[in-house]
C-alpha cells in the first residue's frame, strides 16, 4: 500500500555555500520515515532545539523543500503535485503550530479560521449547515460554541485558541495531523485538556498524529511509537514504553534522566558524565553524539552508526549494540508497532 506521507532519504541543509564554500548546518541528515493511512498511529518525535524536529515537520508539510531526497504524498513528490492532488493533500494533512497567539489575525473573529476551510473545501451546502458543522466540531474538542464563536482571539485563553486550532484541523477530516509543540506555550492545567482532545481525535476519527515535542513526558503519555532525534539524525526509535522505560542510546538515557520528576522522593539524575576522549576529526564520518558520550569508542569517531535492531520494536543508532542485526535499509516501519491504537490505550 502506498503510504500517506513519506520522507525518503531526506537531507536538509541551511546556509553554507556562497563564495567561501562554507559547509551549511545540517538540520536533517538522510532521514526516512513514513506514515501510513491505515492503521492510524500516534508517533512522537522528540528532540532538543537543533535536533531537526521542526525542520522535519516543515518538510512533511511542504513548507520547505529538502536539499536532497524527496517527500512523497501518496507516492507523488510533494513539489510536483497536480492541482487536484494538492487540494487533497491540503485536506488530508493538517498542522497545529506551537504558538496559539501568532496564528490568528487579531482583526478577525475566531469564526474566520473555522469558516475559511468550510468555504474553501465546500464542506457545507448552506450557511446554516456550515454553522452546525462548526459547532459540532467545537463540541468535539471540548469547547462550548456559544463561549467561543463571535469572539476575537484576544478574548480567549491560549488553551482555548489552541483547541480552536485542533477544531479547525478536525473540520477537514484529515488522515494526519502534524502537531508541532502544540502545548509548550500553554499552562499546565490546560495542557492536559489539549492533549486529551488530540487523543480523542485519534480514537474517535482514526486520525494519525505526529506529535513533535521536546517534552518526553507528554510524548510518552500520548505516543505509541517514538523517534528520538539528535542533531538531525534518529538516535533511537521504537515502542514508546521500551524507549522510555529502558532507554538504550546514551543520549536517550541522558535525556530521560535529566527530566525533573514531579515527585520529591524521586531524586533528580542526569549529571552529564565525563566524556570519553576527543572529538572526531572535522569532516570525518562519526556518531553525532560522540563528543558528549561517556561510552564513546574508537569506531564512533570513524563511522556513522547505522540503526541496530536491538529489540523487535526498537532500533538504536549506537555502536554499543553492534552485535544486534542492522536495520535493513532505512525502513523504520519494521520496528514501529502498528497495533490497533484503540485497544492499546486505555480510554
Amino acid at each position, binding site marked *: 500500500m502506498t503510504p500517506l506521507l513519506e520522507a525518503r532519504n531526506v537531507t536538509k541543509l541551511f546556509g553554507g555555500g556562497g563564495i567561501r564554500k562554507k559547509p551549511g548546518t545540517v538540520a536533517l541528515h538522510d532521514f526516512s520515515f513514513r506514515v501510513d493511512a491505515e492503521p492510524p498511529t500516534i508517533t512522537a518525535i522528540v528532540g*532538543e*532545539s537543533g535536533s531537526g524536529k521542526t525542520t522535519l515537520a516543515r518538510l512533511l508539510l511542504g513548507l520547505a523543500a529538502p536539499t536532497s531526497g524527496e517527500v512523497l504524498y501518496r507516492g507523488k513528490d510533494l513539489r510536483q503535485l497536480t492541482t487536484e492532488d494538492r487540494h487533497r493533500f491540503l485536506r488530508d494533512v493538517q498542522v497545529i503550530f506551537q504558538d496559539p497567539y501568532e496564528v490568528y489575525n487579531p482583526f478577525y473573529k475566531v469564526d474566520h479560521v473555522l469558516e475559511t476551510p468550510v468555504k474553501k473545501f465546500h464542506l457545507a451546502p448552506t450557511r446554516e449547515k456550515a454553522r452546525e458543522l462548526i459547532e459540532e466540531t467545537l463540541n468535539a474538542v471540548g469547547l462550548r460554541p456559544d463561549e467561543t464563536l463571535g469572539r476575537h482571539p484576544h478574548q480567549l*485563553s*491560549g*488553551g*482555548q485558541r489552541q483547541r480552536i486550532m485542533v477544531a479547525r484541523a478536525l473540520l477537514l477530516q484529515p488522515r494526519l495531523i502534524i502537531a508541532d509543540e502544540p502545548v509548550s506555550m500553554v*499552562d*499546565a*492545567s*490546560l*495542557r*492536559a*485538556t*489539549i*492533549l*486529551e482532545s488530540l*487523543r480523542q481525535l485519534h480514537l474517535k476519527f482514526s486520525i494519525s498524529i505526529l506529535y513533535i515535542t*521536546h*517534552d*518526553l*513526558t*507528554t510524548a*510518552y*503519555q*500520548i505516543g505509541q511509537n517514538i523517534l528520538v532525534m539528535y542533531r538531525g539524525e534518529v538516535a533511537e526509535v521504537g515502542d514508546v514504553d521500551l524507549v*522510555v*522505560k529502558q532507554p538504550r542510546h546514551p543520549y536517550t538515557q*541522558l*535525556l530521560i534522566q*535529566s*527530566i*525533573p*520528576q*514531579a*515527585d*520529591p*522522593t*524521586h*531524586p*533528580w539524575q*542526569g*549529571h*552529564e558524565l565525563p566524556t570519553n576522549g576527543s572529538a572526531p576529526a572535522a569532516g570525518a564520518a562519526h556518531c553525532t553524539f560522540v563528543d558528549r558520550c561517556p561510552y564513546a569508542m574508537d569506531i564512533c569517531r570513524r563511522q556513522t552508526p547505522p540503526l541496530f535492531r536491538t529489540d523487535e520494536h526498537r532500533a538504536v543508532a549506537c555502536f554499543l549494540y553492534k552485535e544486534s542485526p542492522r536495520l535493513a535499509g532505512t525502513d523504520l516501519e519494521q520496528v514501529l508497532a502498528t497495533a490497533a491504537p484503540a485497544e492499546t*490505550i*486505555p480510554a
Partner: protein
Amino acid sequence: MGLSSRHSVTLSPRPATRPILSVRDLVVHYHTSRGAVQAVNGVSFDIAEGERLGLVGESGSGKSTIALALLRLIRPPGRIESGEIVLDDVDLLSLDEEEMRQVRLARIALVAQGAMNSLNPVLRVKEQIRDGLHDHAAELSGRAFDDRVYELLHSVGLRRDVADMFPHELSGGMKQRVCMAIAISLRPTLIIADEPTSALDVVVQRQVMDTLLKVQEELGAAIILIGHDMGLMAQVVDRVGIMYAGNLAEVSPVADLFRTPLHPYSDLLIASLPSFEVKGAFQGIPGLPPSLLNRPVGCSFRARCPRAFERCATVEPRLREVQPERLVSCHLY
C-alpha cells in the same frame, strides 16, 4: 554536588532561624484604561536564611510581578499599592530610590527569565561583570578585578577565557551562567530566579540548575525560584508557594505538598501533571482563572473548584496555618 546536602535540609526540620525576608499583605495593581488589574492581591510569606522557596502558578497568577515588586522594579502603569517588604529588618518600601538602588544586586539579585538575552551584545563578558562591581563601590584595581572575574566565572562553571568573549560566542546555557555570575558578584543574601531555565533544553537545564544551587549554597543566600514547572520545584526547593489569581493558595514543604496537597487547586494541579507512571489519561482543570480586572467576591478559585460551598461565594479565604508549617487559603480547613 548540591543535591545531596539539599536533601538533608528537607528531611530534617528546618532550623528556627528568623526570616531574612518578610513580605506582608503585598498588593500590586496595574492601572489600565479599563480599571485596575489586581495582579498581586495581599500576598504574605517569609523566607529563612539559605532557604529555597518556590513560587509556582500559571501565567497571570502574579508570580513574576512579585519578583519585580521585591526589587521595587514595578514600572507604571503598575504600582505597589500597599504592604511591607522587610529584608534584614529594613522595609524596602520605605527606602528612597538611591538607597533602593544600593540594595539591588548587593542584597537582592535577579536571574531573570531569558536573562541571557539581557547581556549587552557589544561588551565582553568581563566588562559586563565590571559594571555591577564598580557601580556598587567595590573598587578593584586591574589584577584584583581580573581575579575576581575569574573566580566568579569559575564558581558558575565557566572557563576563564570566557571573560574576554562576546555574548554571541556563548551558548544559551553559558550566557545564563554569565548572568548568574553577575547576580552573585556582590554576594547577595537573596537571589530571585524567575524561570531561570525555561528557555533551555532539559539537559542544559539540569546543569544550569546545579550551578545555581551550588553558588546559592556557597553564598548561604536564600533563593526564590519562580516558575511553572512542578517537576523542577519538586527536585529543587524546600517549600512551595502556589499562586492563583494573585493570591497564595497554599504554602507547604515540598514533600508534604506532593504527598497531600491541601488546597483543591494544588490537588488538581498535581493530578494534571504528566508522569512516566500513568499513561494515556489526561486530566486538566476545567474552566479558566478569573479576570483580575473585576475580581469575583469570595474565593477566586470557586468557579473551578469541585469542593466549593456557600461560604466560598461570599467570604474570601485568608492564608492560615492549618497544619504545622502548612498554610492554606481555603474554607475547607
